């Protein structure tokens, strides 16, 4: 299958500057993501995983190299890319529906059609009856789902997920990662997931990219092929190959506990 390339990083490097000196965060990364792919990115903590997402979202500019989204070199953030952060950051002064409409408001695209679409998304993913609730009244899992719908409401082609489940407890995390991955696949989005949880990466992604310690470079790329009945994270975790992938990636990460 010859799918379109939606994200491409060409020899991208990034250095952070401070008065004390410069810190290389990302070093010569080239990466290509095809339409509809789900890519997991794992790496040692503080290795610059988030930086890569910020580069794709064009919140920051690379020091060297090019970041192409949908084949174009674009300055600044655009609606093509949706970003999901570690915390849901739902605004506590807005109702769930108002939160979901935030992105559309910023683009000046709140109209009957887009509002109806947002409400439909809330309805489809089980938050319809909570649309007029305030975030305080929702559980952590529901809040993260609302945050995903807020990202989906602007209809991005690519979703960037920056450890979106790390603030949740383990059980909610399994359930919500299952839901989120189902939603993303159902909506036909391309996704890049940054996580420090190897199992999470393997269970959700088509490909797992392992990064080295800072400055981050690509150490290896694993195509994940699992034999399982249903293609959702929870059944993927049961696949016989799961352990093998886990062990390989674990070794590559060279996690040393001091």
């Amino acid at each position, binding site marked *: 299958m010859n799918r379109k390339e939606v994200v491409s990083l060409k020899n991208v490097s990034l250095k952070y500057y401070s008065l004390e000196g410069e810190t290389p965060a990302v070093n010569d990364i080239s990466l290509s993501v095809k339409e509809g792919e789900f890519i997991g990115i794992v790496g040692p903590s503080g290795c610059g995983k988030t930086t890569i997402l910020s580069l794709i*979202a064009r919140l920051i500019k690379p020091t060297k190299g090019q970041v192409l989204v949908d084949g174009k070199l674009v300055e600044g953030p*655009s*609606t093509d890319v949706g970003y999901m952060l570690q915390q849901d950051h739902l*605004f506590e*002064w807005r109702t769930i529906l108002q939160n979901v409409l*935030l992105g559309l408001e*910023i*683009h000046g695209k709140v109209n009957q059609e887009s509002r109806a679409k947002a409400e439909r998304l809330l309805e489809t993913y089980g938050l319809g009856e909570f649309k007029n609730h305030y975030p*305080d*009244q929702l559980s952590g899992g529901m809040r993260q789902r609302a945050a995903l719908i807020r990202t989906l409401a602007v209809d991005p082609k690519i979703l960037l997920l920056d450890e979106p489940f790390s603030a949740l407890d383990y059980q909610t995390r399994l359930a919500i990662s299952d839901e989120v991955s189902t939603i993303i696949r159902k909506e036909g989005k391309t996704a890049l997931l940054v996580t420090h949880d190897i199992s999470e990466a393997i269970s959700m992604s088509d490909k797992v990219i392992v990064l080295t310690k800072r400055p981050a470079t690509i150490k290896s790329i694993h195509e994940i092929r699992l034999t399982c009945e249903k293609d959702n994270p929870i059944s993927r975790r049961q696949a016989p190959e799961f352990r093998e992938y886990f062990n390989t990636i674990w070794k590559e990460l060279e996690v040393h506990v001091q």
Partner: protein
Amino acid sequence: MFNRNKIKAASKEHAMYIAKIKRKKLFIRLTQISILILFIILWELAARFKIIDAFITSQPTRIVNTLVNLHEEGTLWMHISISIIETIVGFILGTALGTAIAIVLWWSDFIAKVADPYLVVLNSLPKVALGPIIIVWIGAGPFAIITMALLVSLIVTIITVLNGFLDVSPDKIKLLKTFGATKLQILKKVILPASIPTIIAALKINVGMSWVGVIVGEFLVSKAGLGHLIVYGGQVFKLDLVMTSVFILSIAAALMYQFTTWLEKKLIKWHN
């Protein structure tokens, strides 16, 4: 505080729990009221039995008489309303102008850094010291008093509100940036709404601050208002008048504070 109408007991134990909490609240309120009543009675008795000299301490019945007299003279409401209007104007101006300046400082990091030492000095300077200058410049009248009230509350407001702005989670701002928000949109969608609790806190501080400014202003200008009554009463040794004014002042200040609490509830409806 919770809304009484909303509470429905889920079970017998829950009803007992609610009753317990309510009893505790009632007990606190009763104790508060008793202390006040006891204080007034003791004061009155001490004055009646000449344990204290009512000429310099005044006494509750004298305060009531003074109130009645002032009312009959027809000047009571004039003095009260003058002070209250000056305070409210000073308080609104202080909060509005302070918030506006805080927005400018948030917007431009350069201006904020340049202004920083000036703000620090102005904040520690007792604004009351500027009173005579203000009167010379503006003239001895209500405008000088309002300016005084404004000055006293302005710098504190700027600093409090600006800190509130800077406390807004950088991730919330990042979220808006990922949607491609402009700086103005970040201000309107995140910074201001997230800072409403801070602005309300500033309002609450400003009630007290504006009263300080107004009373000091009235001390200096001394034409009308509660501050004038206090200073005049002190000069002619009518402590009844001083105490009465202080009494009215505490009620007016308490009412204004209650108003800000009410406003807080109205504006921050997402807190339940």
